């Protein structure tokens, strides 16, 4: 086995032609997922996270960039050949109602994944039962119809179907957001278990930051098609450097009334249109700290010593020493050479906690 990461997508660009021009849903995104690692991909609706997840599977063909599975470039592999490796990357969808064929029994739905792998029919029943048991269902669900199951049970079937293919990578797009709160926690625990017991790598796409914190080893935050911050989950939650990440974290309602009234950095305005995104840093029109450079120059994704990365000209809590020690992704664009280094002058803002200077309470 090579040293290459399980999955690496580089400089992915995904464009769609729309009436008013080109919608760039994903803009030069590079992301790796190691074996057994869960990567959380977060952002608000329209940020491109679901598009990126589908591109990784080549459910959508990328406009530009490469997708490599264990070092093997699969970007141009023909669909027929792709089918032979697709069982290694399986997807769980958001909607437990829309993603199961209502006219097929649970056993047949899960069994399809085995056909993909060429498992003989005679062995399928045992493996289907094993997959169902793995997700907390059982033999008595084999002959049931999707409509007989609750939302949580259907989502378990969705996971079982993915597992039956014996994948190395599970791509889960908002797998719990359609479920009731008490059922969400059950699914979250199941996904954590799968990572632990089967060493399954996951790309977990979600808008709910508290759920992502529970399951992910690393997270990447997207805004208007770009990754603006990434890093080990603990680093990003404890020391978010990008003002967008901080605003996103501050906006999550906390189930503790004693923390009500805490000052929060409210985010201004709404997501601009991805068809005509703002120049420079996409976030600058909504950012409390934007300066002239932010309006003209796209910030590079700087790598800091603690493993965190942030694409911001004025990151939080970054000292001059941090900047000196920072490195940078090899940008495809030669213009990258002329980019400015992050400005350490906002370093002291980190002490201000949730109320950085200039923020709107």
């Amino acid at each position, binding site marked *: 086995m090579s040293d290459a990461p399980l999955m690496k997508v580089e400089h992915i660009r995904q464009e769609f032609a729309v009436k008013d021009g080109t919608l760039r849903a994903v803009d030069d995104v590079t992301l790796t997922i190691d074996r057994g690692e869960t990567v959380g991909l977060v952002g*608000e*609706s329209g940020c491109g996270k679901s598009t990126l997840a589908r591109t990784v599977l080549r459910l959508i063909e990328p406009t530009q960039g490469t997708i490599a599975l264990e070092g093997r470039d699969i970007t141009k592999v023909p669909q027929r050949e792709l089918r032979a490796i697709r069982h290694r990357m399986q997807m769980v969808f958001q909607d437990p109602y829309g993603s199961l064929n209502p006219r097929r029994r649970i056993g047949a739905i899960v069994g399809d994944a085995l056909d993909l792998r060429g498992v003989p029919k005679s062995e399928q029943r045992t493996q289907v039962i094993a997959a169902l048991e793995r997700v907390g269902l059982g033999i008595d669900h084999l002959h049931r119809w999707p409509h007989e199951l*609750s*939302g*949580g*049970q259907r989502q378990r079937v969705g996971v079982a179907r993915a597992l039956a293919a014996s994948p190395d990578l599970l791509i889960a797009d908002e797998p719990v957001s359609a479920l*009731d*709160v*008490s*059922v*969400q*926690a*059950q699914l*979250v*625990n199941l996904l*954590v278990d799968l990572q632990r017991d089967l060493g399954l790598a996951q790309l977990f796409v979600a*808008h709910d*930051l*508290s*759920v992502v*914190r*529970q399951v992910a080893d690393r997270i990447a935050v997207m805004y208007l098609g770009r990754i603006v911050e990434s890093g080990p989950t603990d680093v990003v*939650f404890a020391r978010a450097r990008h003002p967008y990440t901080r*605003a*996103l*974290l*501050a*906006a*999550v*309602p*906390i*189930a*503790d*009334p*004693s*923390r*009500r009234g805490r000052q*929060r950095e*409210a*985010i201004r305005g*709404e*997501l601009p249109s991805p068809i005509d995104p703002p120049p420079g840093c996409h976030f600058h029109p909504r950012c409390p700290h934007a300066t002239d450079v932010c309006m003209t120059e796209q910030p590079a994704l700087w790598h800091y010593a603690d493993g965190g990365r942030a694409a911001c000209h004025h990151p939080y809590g970054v000292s001059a020493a941090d900047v000196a020690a920072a490195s940078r992704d090899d940008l495809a664009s030669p213009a990258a050479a002329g980019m400015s280094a992050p400005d350490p002058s906002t370093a002291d803002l980190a002490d201000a906690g949730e109320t950085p200077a200039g923020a709107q309470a």
Partner: protein
Amino acid sequence: MTAPTAPTPAGAPDAASDLLLDIDGLGVAFPSERGPIHAVRDVRLTLRRGEVLAVVGESGSGKSVTALTLLGLTRGRGTAITGKAEFDGIDLIGASDSQLRRIRGKRIAMVFQDPMSSLNPVLRIGHQIAEQIRAHEGVGKAEARKRTIDALTEVGIPRAAERVDAYPHEFSGGMRQRVMIAMALVCGPELLIADEPTTALDVTVQAQILDLILRLRDERGMSVMLVTHDLGVVAETADQVAVMYGGRIVEQAPCDELFADPRHPYSWGLIGSIPPLTGAKPEYLPTIAGTPPSPLALPAGCPFRARCPHEFEQCAEVPPLAETAGAPGHLDRCWLPIDEKRIRRAGADGRIGLLHDAEATTEESA
């Protein structure tokens, strides 16, 4: 835990005497081929002027049916609505449809979860809002338009004078929800019923909309009944909370009190199953086994007993919604004695109790 501090809602100087909504023994049963479906049973709620009451529950808990019933929106052939629901002394259950029409949109307004399907896609939003003003108040077109623009400005829609002529599809989800709120508020209602008003929105937009609702409550002394499944939203906004399960209220308390000292095992589970955003990460989230029951197949007795790890013989009977001595205003529907509850809760999930945990533990050991 000793007497909770009663919340003093802003804009209501003499809250105790200012009862706006009084619901008692409310029941709603829908007809079905298999007999009546009891969606709501024996609901008792009060709401004072300027207060935010959160009604929390999962699908099928009866929270939305309760809200819709107040506006007469569950009326229909064969629907049995029983009990009392009085708004400022007006009987909402017995009121005729035309009486209700005069109240609805004028004194009680509603905001729904999905702003896209609640707006008419082929009519300009200004037209839809102005229609409401003209239906309730005998004002001219020009006056209605001016008030519509004012209302849109008040809820934070930029360039309201231009946007008033836009169609719903020209707005983002968050802006559409602002339009819905402007429409709800344009006649100056005393009560706003908001059913999952932010569920379809992103968190940053959700925070803006909740802040907006709270600001309007403060400025106008309006009461809010917030129907939601999200305990985070509840903790950020509510003065009073009612937790519903299987059509019944299972716990009711001032907001601080509910999170600090939840009494019903279902509340423990709900609070416990939220992944924390800060602090230590639990290895596993505490969960409630099973799924919320369908109103078609509720167990006899306590509605939660099928999923409750603390079930015992007495649960075959429905427990009363009872107040515990020493905690006025904190009611729950569970047979376990209060001391037993505290012991079991500590065993069920150490994280529940939040910041008041130390205090609660001290009292337990005393």
